[in-house]
């Protein structure tokens, strides 16, 4: 579970060596868009040796590989041999590529005696969005990250501050993830210096049902973590609900501050406490 995932360019030693001290719940080491074609092997070697040799690593390690079918994809997978990668972030995923990659990974893992690699789908094409319901059959999937920049390119439309143009895509990701117990991860906010814009975007995405957000700059993490965490008031409310529920196990429903509390509300309170525990907020 995480609230924030920070992209770090795979060929940037300064950022990589500080990866464990950023406030992100997970770090995405990027071998794709953030690395120029001439530097792909340089970045791959750097990430591999960083993971192999660093005694302290980020809480969660995500590796964004180059797209399946590119000349770098198979070489990128060599990094899995470090056994330090928690999730593979695969760009431009659609149903066909997810299945092909899964099958490929199964062979690779058997050959290298590796555990099953979990996948975060980076959905950033119209095809990926419309085929998402088919992804559910794949056991490797643990989350979906919406890539709005590439998606709007694919749709030949402009990204705007209101983000109305990605409302449908965001909703698709959220409903698909909720229905399949996966983490819905929102697209990064790319206007790095616009703090108010970031707050508005986070609140909107969180309000829709996104559970985490990707970041492209460390300065974005505090705001993302704050907005995607349960508030103090929510935590106190949840504690009170759980206490009342435990004190009245025979009652299916009861009142708290004039409002009816029943099973769905108690479940919600439990989820809030679970998140608060994971993010050390209790």
């Amino acid at each position, binding site marked *: 579970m995480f609230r924030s995932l920070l992209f770090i360019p795979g060929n940037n030693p300064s950022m990589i060596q500080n990866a464990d001290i950023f406030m992100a719940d997970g770090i995405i080491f990027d071998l794709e868009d953030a690395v120029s074609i001439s530097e792909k092997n*340089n970045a791959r070697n750097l990430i591999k*040796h960083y993971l*192999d040799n660093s005694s302290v690593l980020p809480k969660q390690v995500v590796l964004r590989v180059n797209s399946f079918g590119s000349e770098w994809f198979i070489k990128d997978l060599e990094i899995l041999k470090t056994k330090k990668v928690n999730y593979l972030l695969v760009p431009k995923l659609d149903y066909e590529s997810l299945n092909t990659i899964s099958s490929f990974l199964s062979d690779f893992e058997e050959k290298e005696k590796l555990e099953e690699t979990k996948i975060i789908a980076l959905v950033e094409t119209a095809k990926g969005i419309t085929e998402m319901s088919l992804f559910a059959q794949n056991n490797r999937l643990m989350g979906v990250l919406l890539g709005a920049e590439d998606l709007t390119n694919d749709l030949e439309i402009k990204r705007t501050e209101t983000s109305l143009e990605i409302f449908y895509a965001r909703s698709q990701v959220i409903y698909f993830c909720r229905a399949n117990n996966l983490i819905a991860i929102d697209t990064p906010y790319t206007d790095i210096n616009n703090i108010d814009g970031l707050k508005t975007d986070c609140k909107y995405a969180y309000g829709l049902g996104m559970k985490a957000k990707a970041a492209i700059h460390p300065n974005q993490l505090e705001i993302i973590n704050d907005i995607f965490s349960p508030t103090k008031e929510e935590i106190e409310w949840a504690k009170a609900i759980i206490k009342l529920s435990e004190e009245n196990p025979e009652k299916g429903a009861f009142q708290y501050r004039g409002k009816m509390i029943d099973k769905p509300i108690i479940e919600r309170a439990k989820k809030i406490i679970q998140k608060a525990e994971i993010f050390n907020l209790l």
Partner: protein
Amino acid sequence: MKGVAGSKESNDCLITIESSNETKIEINSIVGAFFYDQIYSTIENTLKNENITDVHVIVEDKGALDYTIKSRLLTAIERMREDV
């Protein structure tokens, strides 16, 4: 044959490796006063592991950690091997 990898950015190093008639390691580091031996040893061991001799290696170090130096050298070696 020659290979170059890395950069002169902070915490990185630029490594050049070139065929030569003997093995020579040249290190220019901003932290050389403290870490020259460690950097030398990283280069020497990596060359040994890769079975490489008779090369001239130039390291221009801006405070890179060991794994960065090793990875840059390995990329430079890959590039040298491709440079035929």
